[in-house]
C-alpha cells in the first residue's frame, strides 16, 4: 500500500517539479529553435512513458500484493502483446529520431553566406580571429605559436595579414548574419559553449572543427569551456557580444590586424636574418 503510494507520489512529484520548477533552459539567442522543439517533443514522449510505466507498476503493487491465499497467474508469454509493444515503442522512437536527424542535417549544412570567425582555445583563455577586408582567414599552425604570435598565424600567408586578431578579449558579432565558427586549439581539447546559442563543438588541437548559427538577439553572453582542459577549466570564461550592424562596425574599426600586431617583430626577424 505504502509502496504503491510512494510510486504514485514519485510520478506526481516529478511532473510537478518539471512544471513548477524555475529551472529551465536559458532564453534562446540563435536560430536553433528547432533543437528546442525536438527537445520538447522528446520531453513529452519520454514523460508519458515514464508516468505510464511507473503508474502501471504502482497499480500492480497495489492490486496484486501478497495476501493470504493469493496465487499468481501462470502466463509464460504473450506474443501478441509483446509484438504490439515493440511496434509502439519503435514508432515512438521514430517520432523522436526523425525530427532529430532532420535538424542535425541543418546543423551540419553550413549556409554559403556564413561569415567565418575563428575561435582559438588555449589553457585557459579564448582568442578570436576575424577575416579582414579580403574576407579570408590566413592559414595557421600551432608550430608557429610564439609570444608575439599567440595564435600561430602563418606570417607568410598574405591572406592572414589583414586578419583581425582579438587576443583574450571579447568577441563581437553582428545580429542576423549566419556565422561559421571555426574552432581551433593550440594545446588541449576545449569546447566553445554559449548556452544561449544551443550549438557547441569541441576544439581539437591539430584539426579545425566548426559549427554554425545565426544570432537572433543582441546582448552579452558568457562563453564557457565545456570540455575538461586541465586545472583552470572552470575558470576559462569569455564573452560574446551580439551587436547591431552599426555597433559591430564601430567595434571592428577599433581592432588591430595581424600585420599591425606583428609589425615590429617582422622588422627584427628581418634584422636577424641579415645578421
Amino acid at each position: 500500500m505504502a509502496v504503491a503510494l510512494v510510486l504514485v507520489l514519485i510520478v506526481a512529484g516529478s511532473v510537478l517539479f518539471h512544471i513548477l520548477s524555475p529551472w529551465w533552459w536559458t532564453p534562446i539567442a540563435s536560430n536553433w529553435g528547432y533543437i528546442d522543439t525536438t527537445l520538447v517533443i522528446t520531453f513529452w514522449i519520454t514523460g508519458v512513458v515514464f508516468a505510464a510505466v511507473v503508474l502501471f507498476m504502482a497499480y500492480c503493487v497495489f492490486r496484486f500484493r501478497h495476501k493470504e491465499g493469493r496465487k499468481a497467474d501462470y502466463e509464460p508469454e504473450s506474443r501478441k502483446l509483446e509484438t504490439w509493444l515493440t511496434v509502439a515503442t519503435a514508432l515512438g522512437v521514430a517520432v523522436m529520431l526523425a525530427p532529430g536527424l532532420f535538424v542535425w542535417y541543418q546543423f551540419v549544412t553550413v549556409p554559403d553566406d556564413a561569415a567565418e570567425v575563428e575561435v582559438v582555445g588555449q589553457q585557459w583563455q579564448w582568442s578570436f580571429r576575424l577575416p579582414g577586408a579580403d574576407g579570408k582567414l590566413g592559414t595557421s599552425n600551432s608550430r608557429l605559436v610564439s609570444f608575439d604570435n599567440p595564435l600561430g598565424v602563418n606570417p607568410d600567408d598574405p591572406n592572414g595579414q589583414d586578419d583581425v586578431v582579438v587576443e583574450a578579449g571579447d568577441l563581437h558579432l553582428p545580429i542576423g548574419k549566419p556565422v561559421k565558427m571555426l574552432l581551433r586549439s593550440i594545446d588541449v581539447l576545449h569546447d566553445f559553449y554559449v548556452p544561449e546559442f544551443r550549438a557547441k563543438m569541441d576544439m581539437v588541437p591539430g584539426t579545425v572543427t566548426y559549427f554554425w548559427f545565426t544570432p537572433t538577439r543582441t546582448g552579452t553572453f558568457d562563453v564557457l569551456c565545456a570540455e575538461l582542459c586541465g586545472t583552470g577549466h572552470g575558470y576559462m570564461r569569455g564573452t560574446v557580444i551580439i551587436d547591431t550592424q552599426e555597433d559591430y562596425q564601430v567595434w571592428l574599426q577599433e581592432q588591430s590586424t595581424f600585420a599591425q600586431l606583428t609589425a615590429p617583430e617582422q622588422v627584427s626577424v628581418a634584422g636577424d636574418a641579415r645578421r
Partner: protein
Amino acid sequence: MVEVTPHANNAVPAAEVADVELYHPKSWWTTYVFSQDAKVIAIQYSGTAIAIGMVALVLSWLMRLQLGFPGTFDFITPEAYYQFITMHGMIMVIYLLTALFLGGFGNYLIPLMVGARDMVFPYANMLSYWIYLLAVLVLIASFFAPGGPTGAGWTLYPPQAILSGTPGGQAWGIVLMLVSLILFIIGFTMGGLNYVVTVLQGRARGMTLMRMPLTVWGIFTATVMALLAFPALFVACVMMLFDRLLGTSFFMPALVELGQQLEYGGGSPILFQHLFWFFGHPEVYIVALPAFGIVSDLISTHARKNIFGYRMMVWAIVIIGALSFVVWAHHMYVSGMHPWFGFFFATTTLIIAVPTALKVYNWVLTLWRGDIHLTLPMLFALAFIVTFVNGGLTGLFLGNVVVDVPLSDTMFVVAHFHMVMGVAPILVIFGAIYHWYPKITGRMLNEAMGQFHFWVTFLGAYAIFFPMHYVGLVGVPRRYPDIGGTSFIPDSVHTLNAFITVAALVVGFAQLVFLFNLFWSLKFGRDAGGNPWRATSLEWQTPTTPPPHGNWGDTLPVVYRWAYDYSVPGAPEDFIAQNDPGPQTGHVAGPA
C-alpha cells in the same frame, strides 16, 4: 519423462567431477586467502570492490561539498576537485561495478546456478582476483604518489591527461592509473574466460541454455562483451603510456603548452576517443546486463510468477549485447569527428532503445496478476525499474544527436548516467545482496535496518539525480568546481545544488547502516534455512547452506525444467525447483 541417472552420460564434463581432491582444502590459507573456491573468490572480489567503492563514495561527498558550498572548504582546490571526480568515476565504473557484477556475482552465482562444482579453471580464477587486488593497490598508491592521482577526468582524454596543466599529468598519477587499468584488464580476462567457459562447459545435465536463469544469461553475455571490449581500453592505455613515457605521438598533436612548444606532433586525440568509447559504451551494458538478469530473477521469485516473455528477454539480452558495439560514437557527437557519423550513430542508439524498452515492459508485466511479496529484494527491484526507466529515457535525449548538442557536457549528462548506470545497477546490487545473503551466510539480513536503508537510498538517490537534470538544462557544465557568476544561471540553482549535496550526504551515511547490517546479521541474523525465498533456481537447492567447496555433495544436480516454474497450475506448492522431476504439467522433452 526421460529416466536419467547422474553421470550416466559422458556429456557431464569429466573435469568437473574428477578432481575432488581440490575440494578439500588443507589449510586456513588455502581455504580463506589463496582459495580456489569460486564462492570465496566471489566474496574476496566483492569485499575489495565494496571497500574501494567506499573510497569513491567519500570522494563523491567531497566533490558534492565543493559543488553545494563552493569556497567553504579551502582544502578542495580545483586540482583536488579534478582528482576527486576522476578517481570517483573510474573506481565506480571499473573497480566497483564491473568487478562486483562479474567478479563478485559472476563467481558466486554462475557455478551454483548452472549446477557446476566450481569454475572450470579454479587456479586462473584465483589469479584473477589477486591481479585485481594488485590493480586496486596500484590505484590507491596514486593517492600517495608525488603529485597525487590523475585529475584528467575518468575519460582520460589526451592531450590534457598527460600534460602538466592537469593534476598528475606529468607526475605519477596518470602512469599509475594506466598501469592499474592494464592490470585490471589482464586480471579480468583470466576471470572472464572462466565465467564464459563455465557456462559453456560446466552446465549440469539438462541445463540447456534456455533453462538458465536470466542472471546467468546477463552475466554470460556481459562477460563475452567485456572480453571483446576491454582490449580497446588496453590498446588505448598502452598507446597513451607510450606517448607519456616514451615520447611517441599516437594521440598527441603538435601543441604549445603554457608557451612552450612540445616535441609531440601529428597525432590524433580523436583516435583515443574512438578507442576509449569502443570500450566505454559496451562497458555501460557490461554493467547493465548483469543487472537486467538479476532483477528479472528477483522480480520473478518475489512475485511468485514466471518472468514474462522469457524468450524475448534472452533475445533482448543478446541483441543489446551485439548492438552495443555499434553505438560508441554517440559519446562523441560534439567531439569534432565527421558530422555525418551523427546520422548513423543516432539511429543505432535509438534502435537499441527498443529491446531495452521491451525488457522494462516484461518486468512490469511480470508483476501483473502476480503474488507480490514486498520483500527487500522486491523493493530494490521496483526501485531499479523506476530509476532505470528514468535514466533510460533521458538517454533518448542524449542519443538523439541534435538534442545532445546543447546538453552534452552539462550536468544533464551527469544526472543521466548516474541514474542509469550508477543508481539503477547499485540498487540491483543491494537487492541481490539482500536476496542471496541467506545463501552465502545461512542467515537473513536484518529487516528493519534493510527497510531504513532502502527508503533512504532510493528516495535520496532520486532526490539527488532527478533535480540534477534541471541544473544541466539551465546550462551548468559538468566538471566545474565552482560555476561562479554567470549571466544565465539564477541564484536558485545554487540553492538546489546545496540541497543535492545534503541529500548526497544523507544517502552516503545510509550505506553505513547497510555495511553494519552485513556484519551484524552474520552473527545475529535470523536463521535462513536452505531456501528462504522458496525459489526454483539451482543455487537454492544445495544440500547444505552455505554450500561448501564443491557445492553439491556427492551427486551433481540434474535439471528437469526451466528456472521459472512459479505458481504452476495443479502443482502442490507455488514453486517447483529446477532439479525436481516433479509433477508433469507440460510435454516431455523430445523431438516434437
